């Protein structure tokens, strides 16, 4: 894989202020709190973590669907915060999103043709007389056909709707797709069909994915690198195979051990985490994982750990290791 950088995120923060009513102080939810990573051209980069840890907010902020509180996003080395409206509009056609819920993300009052025509009209892509043919081509790519053009979303199954969602995302010929839990709402037998489609069009259309998921077996199967998030922060980044073979951060270790076994005879040593994920409105001091960490020591309660590099491609934030990546 060529190591050409497509996207660079640095120091990204997104805080939400929630009003408690008059005279009460506002609550600040630190949904994304100082997140940095690069994504290279052609790869699938995964964001994994439990519900509410900030995966979707990271994805949406990168696409400028919400404004960041702080930090920088470079897409093809251009700072997207500083782009003019017109340049951003052009860039937008190169960055698309696939959503979790194929039911909610398609307009129920529009036919498939109308749904797919809209982005072509908005971005004035292709000559008007070519557009219908382009739509039919894309439907074939995602395993549907011309026969579906005049149907409405409710006439399709969940898996077919997700195919339509994918068709809508790729019709403008983007380079980069944020796929936010694209298979989580689907049944097992349909899930594998949609995963295959994503793998196939990635090759065919040379796509780069930011793949957001909480399903570790899907992540292990289809991604190249993984960032593990906990309470708005990235706690570990590594190549997928390395992460699964040798997780360094105690949270990653617990997360991987919690995945159900895949055969009744398989034995897995489970690291059971005590308690629940704390609220991002009131995160614990120091290392935010310390109340649940079995290795927590005094320093963990006071000082947030900085990143430790285990190799060029593997880093984690944890006090257990010295800066050379050795266990202290």
């Amino acid at each position, binding site marked *: 894989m060529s190591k050409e950088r497509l996207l660079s995120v640095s120091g990204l923060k997104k805080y939400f202020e929630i009003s408690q009513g008059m005279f009460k102080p506002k609550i600040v939810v630190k949904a994304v709190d100082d997140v940095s990573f690069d994504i290279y051209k052609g790869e699938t980069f995964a964001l994994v973590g*439990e*519900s509410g840890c900030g995966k979707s907010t990271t994805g949406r902020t990168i696409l400028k669907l919400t404004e960041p509180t702080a930090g920088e996003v470079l897409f093809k080395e251009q700072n997207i915060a500083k782009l003019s409206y017109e340049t951003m509009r052009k860039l937008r056609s190169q960055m698309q999103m696939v959503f979790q819920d194929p039911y909610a993300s398609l307009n129920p009052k529009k036919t498939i043709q109308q749904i797919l025509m809209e982005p072509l009209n908005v971005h004035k892509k292709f000559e008007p007389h070519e557009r219908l043919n382009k739509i039919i081509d894309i439907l074939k790519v995602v395993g549907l056909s011309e026969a579906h053009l005049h149907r409405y979303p409710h006439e399709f*199954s*969940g*898996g*077919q709707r997700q195919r339509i969602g994918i068709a809508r995302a790729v019709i403008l010929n983007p380079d980069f797709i944020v796929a936010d839990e694209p298979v989580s709402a689907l*049944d*097992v*037998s*349909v*899930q*594998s*069909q949609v*995963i*295959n489609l994503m*793998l*196939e069009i990635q090759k065919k259309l040379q796509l780069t994915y930011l793949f957001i998921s*909480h399903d*570790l*077996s*899907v992540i*292990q*199967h*289809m991604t190249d690198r993984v960032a593990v998030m906990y309470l708005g922060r990235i706690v570990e980044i590594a190549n*997928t*195979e390395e992460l699964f073979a040798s997780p360094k951060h105690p949270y990653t270790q*617990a*997360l991987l*051990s*919690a*995945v*159900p*076994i*895949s*055969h*009744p*005879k*398989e034995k897995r040593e*489970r690291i*059971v*985490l005590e308690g*629940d*994920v704390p609220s991002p409105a009131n995160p614990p001091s120091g290392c935010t994982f310390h109340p649940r960490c079995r290795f927590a020591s005094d320093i963990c309660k006071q000082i947030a750990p900085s990143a430790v590099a285990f190799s060029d491609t593997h880093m984690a934030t944890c006090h257990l290791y010295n800066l050379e990546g050795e266990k202290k």
Partner: protein
Amino acid sequence: MTNLLEVNNLNICFRNGKSITQPIRNVNFTVRSGEILGIVGESGCGKSVTSLAVMGLLPPKSSEITKGEIIFNEQHIEKMSEKQLQNIRGNEVSMIFQEPMTSLNPVFTIGQQLMEPLKQHKSLTKVQRKERIIEVLKQVGIPRAEQIIDEYPHQLSGGMRQRVMISLALLCEPKLLIADEPTTALDVTIQAQILELLKRIIAETNMSMMLITHDLGVIAEMCHRVVVMYAGSVVEEASVEELFDNPLHPYTKGLLKSLPSQNERKSALYSIAGQVPRPNELGQGCAFANRCEFATERCLTAAPPVFSVAQHKAKCWLLDETVGGVFSE
């Protein structure tokens, strides 16, 4: 082992104006005492409807048991009056639902809600009731049980609410616990805690459990025996090891083969083509025929009966020729 629950030839249909929904067709299975029986299948295949029928909770206006029997502890559930059912429900049989927030009442404290089944089914003094509640909350691993009883559901996290639901189901020491996707709404680390808890409780008591899930990993983790459902019918029944090592029905085979763990990284996953037929698309033959790579002429015209090979059952024509299955119903 004796059978605590027997579902024999159960048929359920819905009357919903014009729309046709998946009826439950000839469902058979048993739950033995002390075992965890898994029921696995895709969305809409009839898992929840079947379990509601066992609880006597089918919507009376729009649904009907048209045939078959549900025998729990030698009593016919399908013949019981609402009053008789109320004596059993939450007492001898209880249920945990998928979404804990919708099944706890937001306006009552945890303690008030846990008090109800005890008042209804057990003759205990007020003090004994409180003791029992705190005991059960501790059993399910709730810290600060004495305080939690005065708190409201919204004050608890998702994992805690699911624990409260489980304690509610355990209060009267039921013989059968039905858990409908008890961990689907939870994160993996919390799921691991809850599954561990349920496994421990079943091992410690003589309770049986019907565990409904669409996740084969949860099945592998938890169950002794498994029933696979497809489009309103049971298509396979086996011990959990048998099912994973030697699946007989092409649908089960396909499901297992499509798991990412069974496929080489980055390769195209094995996948079952097509989709579940809508109820109005079901023909005379096997409900899986439109997706089955082994389908023959006969599969399209005649629905396969259940064949058994020792303790392993499957509803598929392949079994009579290839493995010498015995026609069993």
